[in-house]
């Protein structure tokens, strides 16, 4: 019976229980939640119901089957049934117990009845009964007898007494009747009770309602939970076709989904991935989760957290997957934002620390450089003293060994000085302190002077050549001092590494190189052009070539590095600081150009630098032309403004040793000073052992300068000075002269060949010359200085040197003084109140160039009249202005040169420095 009931109920349940799984009250809101639902508006959400109503949809018909066939589907029912079974078992057990009780009671009752009947029979002794049961009655009797026998022993007397009374038996019968009645009554009641209990059992035994309730509760719970959950649930078969889908916010109708796969429904990013993921789960048979971002036309870009589990049928075969998805776009966004933020933070922190490090390093570097510069300055002054003194010592009478030692000392000192100057230059370029000056200059002249200077120090039989293309402008604007420095450096390098053949400089105009096209410098130029300035830019390529030992290819990359030479071998053999090329490169780059090198071992090297120059206006040019021709008249100098070729033949026995220190060589007064032919000869005769010098002298005869009688006297005159030439030193004052005639120049059509020689006079001679000069005309010297004590000291020193000075206390006073009288030399303090030395010098130079004090007046200097008369007097002469600098970066020698000063004396001024200066500039 129980079994029957169970099966019945399960069947019922399948229909009824499931149909109520989604309660009706959900319907109104959940209309569209269940894609399984009919659009017809049937509020019964369950597919089973739908199945019954619409058997057309295959999957709906399949669902109950699914529910039955799948493990998951049947488990719930199984649970319910089990529970029910248990309860039924319990009820049955109770009923059975009851039944057993009742049966027992009945048996008891029956037994009692039997006993009563027996007793009654025995006592009434009814004969009618006996015949029916003969044998039994016999037995009965016997039994009764036996019983009676047994009883007799004890009760015989009583019984005997009462047995015979009718009343007794009547009474007894009545009692028994009553008992019987009660028994019957009890039996009836029991039967009633039994039937009643059977009835209740029947009513209880219908489990449907209970199960229904349970299921309803489960449904209610599920619905309550899922009602607003933003999740999508679905079941897909093993071909991943949707069989069932629940979606809180459906954007597709069920027809569009059911029976299709993801790929068929959606298009776009993530669809394929989710499909693959589902397939993977299906294949592996292991539930898993994954986050997938979908980018579909349907709902844009959204990220879902997807849970997929495989579904097995009862036989354990995979039949599909269950799928649950939840949109986590915002969360993912937030998470990603956070991650990004964190990442950014980390990156920023890293950058910060990096920056801090860089700043720290930069600061350290700057400090180190500053220190280096300061130190170099501090070292330079005493070293100059050492070298200077050694040079003076060399003019005294020394024996051969002493002289050799002294020579070593001087050349070492020179090298250290050079090194310090180089370091200063480098550190200035690197720290950005170095400023470039734009001054007008003539490239041809610069090349010529550089070659001349180099030729003067030549100790080898090299020919120096200058070759300037016709299209190179006569005059360009640039930092001539820097360019000279580069040229000098490259030339001295070329000479150093060339033992025979030629060394030369070649200049030509080139089109704007590619590296400069997007250079800021070019932009600046263009800007200026647009601003209506008449200046245009020209790119000039300068080759410094030689026929020397060349540079191996592998050494080229480190050629421009600091303190590097092509090889250690070279360093030993040729000496040098290893800074020269690094400085050249830095200077060229500072000016917006490029320095390159090509070389072949044993054939020579060519260093090429390309620089932009501005070309001045034609007005300026004509002015200069006038000025120049003026000057040419005075000095009978050949007009070389347009000449394109120079050649310098070697002149041995010159005063310079290894290239000489930069300043002494590089910054000779711009105008070549002519000396008398006699002095010129001195330089040759000075070194009697030098045969080449003699042969050169023969060539000179063509120039018509040789005067034999004077030659003799002068050769006899200074045997001592010869030593000085050998020693060589850069600070010695040299006067270059060119022995060439302008007629020759014109006859050769602008190509001039000339020899350069040097005349050098010893200090002794200079002093002699000075005294000579003093006799004829005392040089006028102006000291511009604001410090009383400095004035006092300088004046006293001048006095010792046999000169007097005028004093100006600042730049304005200096200009006024220069305006009023003519000076031969100005000693100018750099740092002064009112108008500093640099500005004052600029104004003075401007006056020399333009012939008027307009610039000064513009600058606020009050200039008195009478200026016109003096213009013609002085515009042809460049007034030597010597700076007096304190040893600071701000008052660098470079700045002095850049501002038009001719030389500088570092403070404190000493007799020696002053004397050298006067010797150089007073003549």
């Amino acid at each position, binding site marked *: 019976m129980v079994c029957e009931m169970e099966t019945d109920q399960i069947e019922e349940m399948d229909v009824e229980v499931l149909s109520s799984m989604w309660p009706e009250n959900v319907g109104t809101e959940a209309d569209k939640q269940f894609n399984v639902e009919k659009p017809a508006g049937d509020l019964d959400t369950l597919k089973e119901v739908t199945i019954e109503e619409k058997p057309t949809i295959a999957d709906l018909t399949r669902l109950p089957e699914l529910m039955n066939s799948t493990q998951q589907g049947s488990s719930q029912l199984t649970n319910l049934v089990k529970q029910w079974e248990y309860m039924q078992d319990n009820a049955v057990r109770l009923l059975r117990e009851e039944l057993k009780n009742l049966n027992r009671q009945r048996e008891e009752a029956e037994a009692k009845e039997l006993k009563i009947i027996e007793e009654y029979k025995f006592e009434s002794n009814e004969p009618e009964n006996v015949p029916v049961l003969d044998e039994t009655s016999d037995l009965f009797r016997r039994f009764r007898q036996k019983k009676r026998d047994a009883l007799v022993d004890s009760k015989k007397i009583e019984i005997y007494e009462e047995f015979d009374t009718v009343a007794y038996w009547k009474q007894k019968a009545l009692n028994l009747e009553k008992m019987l009645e009660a028994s019957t009554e009890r039996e009836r009641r029991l039967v009633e009770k039994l039937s009643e209990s059977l009835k209740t059992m029947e009513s209880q035994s219908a489990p449907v309602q209970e199960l229904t309730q349970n299921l309803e509760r489960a449904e209610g719970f599920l619905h309550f939970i899922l009602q607003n959950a933003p999740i999508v649930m679905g079941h897909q078969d093993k071909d991943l076709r949707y069989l069932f889908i629940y979606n809180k916010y459906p954007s597709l109708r069920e027809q569009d989904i059911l029976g299709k796969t993801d790929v068929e429904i959606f298009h776009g990013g993530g669809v394929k991935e989710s499909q693959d993921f589902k397939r993977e789960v299906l294949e592996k048979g292991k539930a898993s989760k994954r986050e997938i971002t979908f980018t579909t036309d349907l709902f844009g870009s959204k990220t879902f957290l997807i849970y997929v589990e495989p579904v097995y049928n009862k036989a354990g075969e995979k039949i599909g997957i269950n799928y649950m998805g939840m949109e986590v776009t915002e969360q993912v966004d937030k998470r990603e934002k956070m991650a990004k933020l964190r990442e950014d933070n980390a990156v920023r922190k890293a950058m910060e620390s990096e920056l801090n490090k860089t700043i720290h390093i930069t600061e350290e570097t700057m400090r180190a450089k500053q220190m280096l510069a300061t130190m170099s300055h501090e070292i330079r002054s005493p070293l100059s003293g050492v070298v200077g003194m050694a040079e003076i010592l060399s003019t005294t009478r020394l024996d051969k060994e002493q002289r050799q030692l002294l020579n070593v000392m001087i050349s070492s000192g020179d090298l250290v000085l050079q090194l310090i100057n180089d370091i200063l230059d480098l550190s200035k370029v690197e720290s950005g302190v170095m400023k470039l000056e734009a001054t007008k200059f003539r490239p041809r002249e610069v090349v010529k002077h550089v070659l001349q200077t180099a030729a003067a120090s030549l100790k080898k039989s090299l020919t120096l050549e200058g070759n300037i293309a016709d299209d190179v402008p006569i005059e360009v604007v640039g930092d001539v001092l820097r360019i000279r420095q580069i040229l000098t450096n490259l030339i001295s390098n070329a000479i150093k590494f060339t033992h025979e053949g030629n060394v030369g400089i070649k200049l030509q105009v080139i089109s704007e190189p590619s590296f400069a096209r997007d250079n800021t410098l070019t932009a600046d130029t263009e800007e200026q052009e647009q601003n209506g300035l008449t200046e245009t830019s020209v790119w000039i390529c300068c080759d410094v070539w030689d026929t020397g030992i060349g540079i191996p290819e592998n050494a080229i990359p480190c050629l421009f590095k600091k303190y590097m030479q092509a090889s250690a071998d070279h360093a030993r053999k040729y000496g040098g600081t290893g800074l020269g090329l690094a400085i050249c490169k830095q200077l060229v780059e500072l000016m917006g150009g490029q320095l390159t090198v090509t070389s072949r071992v044993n054939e020579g090297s060519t260093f090429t630098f390309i620089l932009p120059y501005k070309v001045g206006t034609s007005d300026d040019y004509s002015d200069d032309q006038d000025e120049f021709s003026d000057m040419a008249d005075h000095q009978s100098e050949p007009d070389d403004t347009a000449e394109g070729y120079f050649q310098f033949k070697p002149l041995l026995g010159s005063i310079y040793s290894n290239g000489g220190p930069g300043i002494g060589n590089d910054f000779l007064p711009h105008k070549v000073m002519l000396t008398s032919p006699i002095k010129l000869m001195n330089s040759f005769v000075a070194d009697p052992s030098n045969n080449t010098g003699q042969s050169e002298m023969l060539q000179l005869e063509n120039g018509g300068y040789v005067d034999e009688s004077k030659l003799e006297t002068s050769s006899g005159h200074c045997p001592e000075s010869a030593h000085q030439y050998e020693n060589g030193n850069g600070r010695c004052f040299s006067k270059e002269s060119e022995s060439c005639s302008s007629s020759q120049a014109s006859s050769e059509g602008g190509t001039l060949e000339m020899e350069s020689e040097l005349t050098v006079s010893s200090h002794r001679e200079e002093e002699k010359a000075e005294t000579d000069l003093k006799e004829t005309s005392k040089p006028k010297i102006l000291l511009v200085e604001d410090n009383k*004590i400095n004035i006092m000291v300088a004046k006293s020193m001048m006095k010792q040197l046999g000169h007097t000075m005028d004093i100006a206390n600042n730049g304005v006073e200096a200009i006024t003084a220069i305006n009023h009288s003519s000076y031969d030399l100005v000693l100018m303090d750099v740092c002064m109140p009112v108008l500093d030395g640099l500005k004052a010098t600029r104004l003075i130079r401007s006056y020399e160039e333009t012939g008027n004090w307009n610039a000064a007046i513009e600058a606020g200097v009050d200039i008195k009249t009478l200026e016109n008369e003096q213009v013609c007097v002085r515009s042809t002469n460049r007034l030597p202005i010597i700076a007096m600098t304190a040893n600071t970066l701000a008052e660098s020698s470079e700045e002095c040169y850049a501002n038009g000063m001719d030389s500088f004396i570092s403070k404190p001024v000493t007799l020696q420095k002053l004397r050298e200066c006067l010797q150089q500039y007073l003549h």
Partner: protein
Amino acid sequence: MNTTVVAQLQRQFQDYIVSLYQQGFLDNQFSELRKLQDEGTPDFVAEVVSLFFDDCSKLINTMSASLERPDNVDFKQVDSGVHQLKGSSSSVGAQRVKNVCISFKECCHVQNREGCLRCLQQVDYEYKMLKTKLQDLFNLEQQILQAGGTIPQVDIN
């Protein structure tokens, strides 16, 4: 008798001046100065030096006035004073004063009032110190001259 006194004084003078160099009060420039002194200008060094000390005192006064105002220091003015002082001290060979001036100048450039005041005190101390030392030196010179001796040439190097 007299010659021994002179010799003693001369040795004393030599030792003293050498010690001034060795202790860094003076440098070579002072020797330059002494070279400039000749029969024509027998008191040249003393004149220059006293001018220098006057200068020092004046400049220090102005600078200390400038630096007294705590919040409105005219560093430019101070700097020009230091510059003057540096130039002068360098000219007379007052090495210690000059060295203080160098750091003084740095303090001016970074507008460090505390540093400036410290340097000012140092400069004041140094120049006064030098002043007494040089006074002693000049006294010795005078004594030598009075004793009929000559000022010895001192080779510092």
